[in-house]
């Protein structure tokens, strides 16, 4: 397995708040890796540090053998990292089509490639096709999540960073979202998935990390973590 993305001893601060205290995470080509942990553990900060929205004070982020620690977000995205942020963050006043076009900002090869990709997205998310000229802000929560994922996939990224894709969705939709994540991975995409819904995330993940107040406390395969006592107690609600 080739290492695609690797964080080594990353420390990230918000002013005086020490949010990541030496986090090391590795994602191999073709894997689904999940980062689970309670609210405020630093999951979002880890993803933001990878995609360049926040800069680590110490430590290193390597991607495809390249040091991306100090790159600007738009350069990191051009390297092939697509970050679907927490809360979806679709552009509310842009139409569905325009949201997808924004996602293809760095796609080379012109209109043809972009419309091919868009059609692939519509195959995967038929609902988006029905809403193509509708403003992003008028979509339902589930549709917005689909749009956020499709928008990121327009980049044909090497790795997809997903931050709580199931947040705020009805249980039936949550199943659907995880199903899609699985399908995206089976199509050859590497995924780093952040979830509070640890059970579902660990079920589809090859490997997982448990994050507690800015530190990795456990690291194992998804299946093993599902059996782990600490995980069962702290995150799967067992007593």
């Amino acid at each position, binding site marked *: 397995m080739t290492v695609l993305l690797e964080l080594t001893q990353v420390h990230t601060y918000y002013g005086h708040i020490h949010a990541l205290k030496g986090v090391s995470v590795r994602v191999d080509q073709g894997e689904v890796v999940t980062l689970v942990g309670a609210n405020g553990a630093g999951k979002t900060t880890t993803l933001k540090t990878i995609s360049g929205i926040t800069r680590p004070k110490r430590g290193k982020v390597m991607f495809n053998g390249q040091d991306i620690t100090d790159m600007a*977000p*738009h350069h990191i995205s051009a390297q092939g990292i697509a970050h679907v942020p927490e809360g979806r963050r679709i*552009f509310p006043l842009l139409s569905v089509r325009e949201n997808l076009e924004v*996602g293809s900002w760095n796609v080379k090869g012109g209109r043809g490639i972009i419309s091919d990709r868009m059609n692939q997205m519509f195959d995967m998310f038929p609902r988006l096709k029905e809403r193509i000229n509708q403003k992003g802000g008028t979509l339902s929560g589930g549709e917005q999540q689909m749009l956020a994922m499709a928008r990121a996939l327009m980049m044909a990224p090497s790795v997809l960073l997903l931050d709580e894709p199931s947040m705020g969705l009805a249980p039936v939709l949550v199943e659907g979202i995880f199903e899609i994540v699985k399908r995206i991975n089976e199509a050859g995409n590497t995924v780093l998935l952040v979830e509070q819904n640890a059970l579902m995330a660990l079920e589809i993940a090859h490997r997982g990390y448990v994050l507690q107040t800015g530190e990795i406390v456990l690291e194992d395969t998804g299946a093993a973590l599902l059996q782990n006592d600490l995980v069962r107690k702290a995150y799967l609600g067992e007593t």
Partner: protein
Amino acid sequence: MSSESLSPRQGGLLDPLIQSEAWQRFSHTGFYRFIVFPIGQIIVFIVAATVFLTALAYLVALLIPEPRPNIVLSDQISRQLPGMVISGISIGFVYAMVALGYTLVYGVLKFINFAHSEIFMFGSVIGFAFMNFLSSAGVLADWNPVVLVIATILISGIASGLLAVLIERVAYKPLRNAPRLVPLITAIGISFILQDVVRALASITINDFNLTYPTRNIAFFQNPIPVVIGTNEVRVRMTSIIIVIAAVIMLLALNYFVNGTKAGRGIRAISMDQATSGLMGIPVNLMISLTFFIGGAFGGAAGALFGLNVGNVTPYIGFIPGLKAFTAAVLGGIGNITGALLGGLLIGMIEAFLNGLLPYFPAIGIRYTDIITFGILIAVLIFRPSGLLGERVDEKV
């Protein structure tokens, strides 16, 4: 000029037309989105502002029929109406072009660039410098007036756009994470610096900072064109016509840029969510510079057109028109491009009506025009801070 802002609500009379397939197809063509719709919008705004202000004026005439002995207000209104409308439209377009600079920058940075009034002034001074250069080279009269106007607009626009980019890079970008008051104060400081630098340069080079456009001596620009409307003959100044034509062309170009190009889409995305735009690969700082360039270019071109119209500029002419354009941007809804157009036309019309009619009232002269205009600014800020078109309710949180 988002193509949604004028579409009727669901359940309207026009639904059968709007839902018909032919209309649906037509409304997505470039011809509709970039030519028919924006021109229609401009016409609707002009007609609406004219009707509204005319009705208001006659209402005042009903309440105060004779503001002075032997002066019948309603007669004065009907006699002056065409002239007031034409001058309102032309000054309105100047305000609209300047207001766009405030609104575009506010859109991407949520910051009021108070130095924009000096960008406008700078454009008017560059316009003067260019024409003065041609004049002292003795070739001004030989230039075709249309070519001269186009060249002046381009040079003033590009120079002002570059100045705006420079100011952003040097003065605002380092303050992007500072408290919001800090860049605001900086912008006011930049205003003073620009005024004094321009005055110093003008004083050194031509020993005067009262800059008179040499076009004053060219018949094409100065001889008014008589236009007969009904029984009235109105004399329209060539410079008013130039302003309207230039502004409409530039507004169409801006609408195409914002709604029809990749860079325009990037700027709109940044105005909604800067961090996420970066994640999508949009070079945020470059797009912000581009926004300053376009806003500055519009302000500078408006400055040159204004200078051509009034014939005489100084380093201090930016303040009042800048403040009025800011009023226009706030009235329309700051951050909203269509709002800047509507606000500009409205403020221009209001000013023209006041200038035309206030002299008939005892004790109130033309000087009250500015007081009333800025009264509108205060009223909007108090009662409807989001402006006429500012409230976008289609945003689901």
